[in-house]
Each structure stands twice: as structure tokens, then as C-alpha cells.
């Protein structure tokens, strides 16, 4: 570790997070289930595969355009399970509440959790509550863990993208990040952008129902598309080539990103995924995605080559080329 204290960027989902996870946690807890460091752990019980994951939610503010910390706490965990090809069944739910939090706010958040869980058909089956003194946390933090059953014949993992694969995204990027930023005090811009926060399992189910073999899937959260493709290129030892003109980013998000000096490819999402499948299967996958409301704007944004190994590149709109690097991670703290 180069830093002797935890920096905000250690939690940003970028290269410092990777350093912390790989250098400390994975190193100390090393075991075969943990080792792939994917979105969920894959557990085999009686020859059936289950996905198990956990995530904590600290977003500020806890109500933002298009969602709230409760909806996020269900979606984030459900999506991590879905990316492993698992149908989500059960969630745990733990609250850390700050003394003085209005009960009315908590009730709204709980209702939002109930509604989002119902959307996907998951049940909250266990939980915990702690209260800390005023000033010790920012309203409330939530942790959820989830269990799902893997329904794909092959295991999905970030190491399984292959040369010849198409890269597909289910819609336009950066909405969650911009929506949360614009609702923070101190930032004086108004937008009509709302968070894309949504549970992706129903969409993933449509895709899996086509019977097409999906090689890898990843939800685009902190670090956005940039973190996802750079991670998968690294884990799979392949080259990912994206076409800038094909990557959907709406005008308003692009404008906000320009204003903030942030690359839209690194902006956070909470209802977007990329998936990798053989190019010949791409049309069938796209057709299935477009049938679902979360996949109406699905499109192919690039392809996988065998070179440059471990690297993601962007063919730019003007015909140049550049690296898509893992963001360092300090751009937008407390986005989820």
C-alpha cells in the first residue's frame, strides 16, 4: 500500500479500490471461491450453482431524481446476482441509522425497498438495525446481501470474454451519476436527467431465454463503462475495441459531463449492463433486449479482438484511437 491512510478514492471503484481489494482483502482471505473477484461469489451446493453477494449503500443525498437509497440497495445487489446469471431469491437488509433521521424519510425508503423487491420477485428474509449518534453518519447507510440460483448452463465471469465476441449495452450511459451530482448542494446546474436505477434481472432473463450462450456480463456502476471494459479486458486477456459513435450518451448527460470535466464513459450507472456474446448471436440478443423496457435502446458498441491483450480501446468519432483506462476513482464520491 502506498498510502498509510484510507483515501476517498479507495472506495471509488477504480485502480485504488483494486489495489486495496487485491493487495489486502483477497490476499488475506484467499480461497478458490473468492479468487475470481467477480460481482458475486459462485457457490456449489449439491451440484447446483448459487450466486451470493453483498453491497453497502452510502449515496448522498438519499433521495435523488429517479430513485433513493432504498431502491438502490435492492437494485445493486440484485444486479450483481443477475450478472452471474442467477435468478435472485433472497435479500438481507441492514440499516445503520443516524440519530435524528426523520421517521417519515425512513418509511419512504422502506416502501421503496418493498416495491423494488416486488418488481424482481425477491424477498427480504433477514436484517439488522443499528443507530449511531447524530453526526456519525449521513442520515442512513444500508447494507444488503443476496442469494440467487444460477440458471445459465455456463458460468459467467469477467474472465470469459473471447475474441470474436460482440459487446452489447442496454441503453445510454451516465444518467445515475449526473442525476445524483445535480441533486447535491453546491452544484448549481439543473437537469431533467433522472437516475437509471433499475433491477436488471427481468432484462437478463429475457436474454437468457433466447438460449444464446452469453460469455460475460457486467453491470456498469462506479467507474462506468470505462471501469467495466478495462476490467474485463484485463481478466479475459483480450482486447476490447469500442466505437465512440456507437456508444449511446444522451445530449444532456454529455453537456453535464463537459461542465464537470468528467468523461461520460466513467460516469456511474445503476441500470445498465454490458454483455459479451458471439457476433453471430448479437442480433438475437438485441431483439430480446429491445422487447423489454430496460433494453429498448440496446445496441452493439464494439467487439473483442485477441489484441491488444488486456486492454480496451476506443475508436473515436474523428477516426483516432485511444486507451480506455481504469478510472482512478476519486471523481464522484458517494454515488451509490
Amino acid at each position, binding site marked *: 500500500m502506498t498510502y498509510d491512510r484510507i483515501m476517498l*478514492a479507495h472506495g471509488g471503484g477504480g485502480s485504488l479500490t483494486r489495489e486495496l481489494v487485491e493487495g489486502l482483502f483477497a490476499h488475506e482471505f484467499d480461497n478458490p471461491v473468492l479468487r475470481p473477484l467477480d460481482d458475486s461469489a459462485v457457490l456449489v451446493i449439491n451440484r447446483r450453482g448459487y450466486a451470493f453477494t453483498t453491497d453497502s449503500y452510502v449515496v448522498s443525498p438519499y433521495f435523488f431524481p429517479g430513485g433513493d437509497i432504498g431502491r438502490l440497495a435492492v437494485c445493486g445487489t440484485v444486479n450483481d446476482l443477475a450478472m452471474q446469471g442467477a435468478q435472485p431469491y433472497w435479500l438481507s437488509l441492514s440499516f445503520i441509522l443516524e440519530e435524528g433521521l426523520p421517521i417519515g424519510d425512513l418509511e419512504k425508503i422502506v416502501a421503496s425497498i418493498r416495491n423494488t423487491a416486488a418488481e424482481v420477485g425477491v424477498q427480504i428474509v433477514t436484517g439488522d438495525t443499528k443507530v449511531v449518534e447524530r453526526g456519525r453518519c449521513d442520515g442512513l447507510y444500508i447494507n444488503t446481501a443476496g442469494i440467487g440460483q444460477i440458471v445459465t448452463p455456463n458460468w459467467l465471469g469477467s474472465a470469459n470474454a473471447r475474441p470474436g465476441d460482440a459487446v452489447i449495452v442496454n441503453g445510454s450511459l451516465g444518467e445515475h451519476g449526473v442525476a445524483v451530482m445535480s441533486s447535491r448542494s453546491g452544484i448549481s446546474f439543473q437537469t431533467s436527467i433522472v437516475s437509471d436505477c433499475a433491477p436488471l434481472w427481468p432484462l437478463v432473463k429475457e436474454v437468457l431465454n433466447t438460449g444464446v450462450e452469453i460469455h460475460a456480463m457486467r453491470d456498469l456502476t462506479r467507474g462506468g463503462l470505462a471501469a467495466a471494459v478495462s476490467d474485463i479486458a484485463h481478466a479475459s486477456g483480450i482486447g476490447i475495441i469500442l466505437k465512440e459513435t456507437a456508444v449511446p450518451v444522451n445530449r444532456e448527460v454529455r453537456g453535464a459531463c463537459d461542465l464537470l470535466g468528467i468523461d461520460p464513459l466513467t460516469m456511474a450507472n445503476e441500470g445498465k449492463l454490458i454483455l459479451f456474446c458471439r457476433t453471430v448471436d448479437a442480433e438475437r440478443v438485441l431483439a430480446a433486449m429491445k422487447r423489454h423496457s430496460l433494453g429498448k435502446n440496446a445496441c452493439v458498441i464494439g467487439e473483442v479482438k485477441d489484441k491488444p491483450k488486456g486492454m480496451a480501446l476506443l475508436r473515436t468519432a474523428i*477516426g483516432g484511437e485511444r486507451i480506455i483506462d481504469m478510472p482512478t476513482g476519486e471523481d464522484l464520491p458517494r454515488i451509490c
Partner: protein
Amino acid sequence: MKTLVQTIEELAGRLGRDVELMEVCGTHTMVAFRTGLRQLLPESVRLRSGPGCPVCVTDASYIDAAVELCRRPDVVVATFGDLLRVPGSESSLDRERAAGGSVRIVYSPSDALVLAKECPSKRVVFLGVGFETTAPTVAWSIWRAARDGVRNFSVLCAHKTMPRAMDALLRDQQVKIDGFLCPGHVSVITGAAVYRFIGERYKIPCVIAGFEAWDILKSINMLLTQILDGRAAVEIEYSRSVTEHGNAAAQRLIVEVFEPNDAIWRGIGTISGSGLAIRSKYSNFDATHAIGVKFGEAHVNPLCRCGDILRGISTPLDCRLFGCTCTPAHPIGPCMVSSEGTCAAYYKYEGRVAA
């Protein structure tokens, strides 16, 4: 876009020699990398990045002073996020914040002023860095603080002006420049006329460029045409925003609050008259005066080549630290920190392909 590149190739062919064009605006540097524009240029046309990133030219002694301030129990340091990770001699503001220092990120100096009004028991010090682009908003916040009688607000001022720095570069024998891509946002404030001396005194053509890839390509086109014609004029490509004489109201604010002083540019040294100091009339809002912080002598890694990079005589690939010990996650020099820094741009978008 194709035809712009083709024309550049054609002009470069007719020139038949290498040309070094310098952009002196961090946003231009970033756009050039992010869009992959550099690779479209013929080999004989080279884009060099000058001292256009405000964070990169901020001296380590300034960071040291800010670090010292944020350790004081009665002070809150308010800053643009870009400065947070810039290394000083021994520490940086993000390390200080993790260790308990009082550092707040704001998105404008007026937010810092609001913060001061909200926390009357604290002294809020805004870190004023940047060129003519940010100087007017800082001037406004000082003027406003004076008008409203906000006594716990001050600015640690290291503002700089671009034309003097360009002058210093041209006087430097080591620096070879055939044309300047002049900054877009700075020029919106200053107007095009401030660059006239570059053509008159040094016979170097200037084009004020906008921020789309085609703006920059078109500007390169205009520069090459001037070189071929043997002209050295100031032309405005970014004509949708830039005028001959700039934004008079913003200029008046700058003059009201600031006066020229000698400024230290990181890695370059002192350039006379290239800085903006707070006038004595507003000294209650000058942190050096109001709080009594001093600038000491800075110690920086002697291997860091940021100074040569800022003058355009080296590229990051010439630096032994680049990409090894100095990375965006662990920056040693300021050019690796800022999103507009040359080293960060090389590292993120290009450097490791070339390496």
C-alpha cells in the same frame, strides 16, 4: 473531418519541414487526447502541450502553504477538486483530509463565500488558482465579501495570466515553437488583442481555438496556412465566443481586485508580471495578509520532469518516473494529477501504447 485532415496533410507536405505547435490550454490537451486527434496528424506536425493546466503550474510551495492552513483548527480550506491530490513538498490536501485536516471541495468561489457565511466561527480560505478564466469569479467573491462585510473569508491567491507566460516561453532559447493554439476560455475574457505582441515581436502565428475536435483541426489548418504564407497574425477560429477585446465587465472586476505581480510557475520559475495579487484595498481578504500564512521553499522530486514538459521541451515519455512510480493513482508531479495535465492525458489515453 476527413477533408480537414487531408488539408493538413497537404499543407504539411507543402511546408516540407517539421513544425511544433503548442497548445497552452489544458482543455485543448485533453480534447486532443480524448478524441484521438493527435494520431490523425502527419508526423511532421507535432502538438506540444504548454503550461495551460492551472493545477500543473501551481508551485509546490503554494500546496505547502495550503497544507499548513488546513491543519489549523480554526481554518477551513475550500478548493476546486483538482488541487486535492497535487503533491506539495511532503503532503497533499487529500492526505491531510484523511488525517483530519479541514478541506472542503467547492465548485465555485461563491460556494466558498456561502460556506464562510454559514460557519462564522471558522476562517474559510479559498484556494484561488487558474488563469483569466477563473480570476473574474474569484475577484467577484472578494468584492462581494467586502460589500457584505464577511470577515472570515479570504483567498490564498496564485492566479496567473497567460500572455506573459507565452512571452517567457518564446524568450527561452530551448523552447522551439512554430505556432500557438491559443486558449479558448481565457480568450473569451481577455479578447484576441492580448496576443498581438506574439506576431509583432516574435513572428509566431496564433490561432484561438474552440473545444471540439474539428475546432482544433481547423485551427491547426489555419496555423499551417499562416506559416506557409509567412504571416504571423492572431486569428480567431473560436469566433462563436471570442471577440477582439473580450469581456469588459470581467476585465474590470479583475483590475478592481487584482494587480500584476511576479508569479512562480512550477518547473519554470518566476515570470515577472505574470501573476495576479490581491490589491491592498482588499488585503483583509488576502490569506497571506489576513491569516499570515507564508510561502516557504518547496522540495520536489528532482527526477520529476514536469517543468520541461510544461515548457514543451520534453514529453512524459522522456521522464523516468512516468508510468512507473508516477501514475494517476500515485502522482509525483502535478502534470499527472489534473485531468487536464499532460502526463495524465498521456497515461490515460496514449502513453502506454507508445511505451
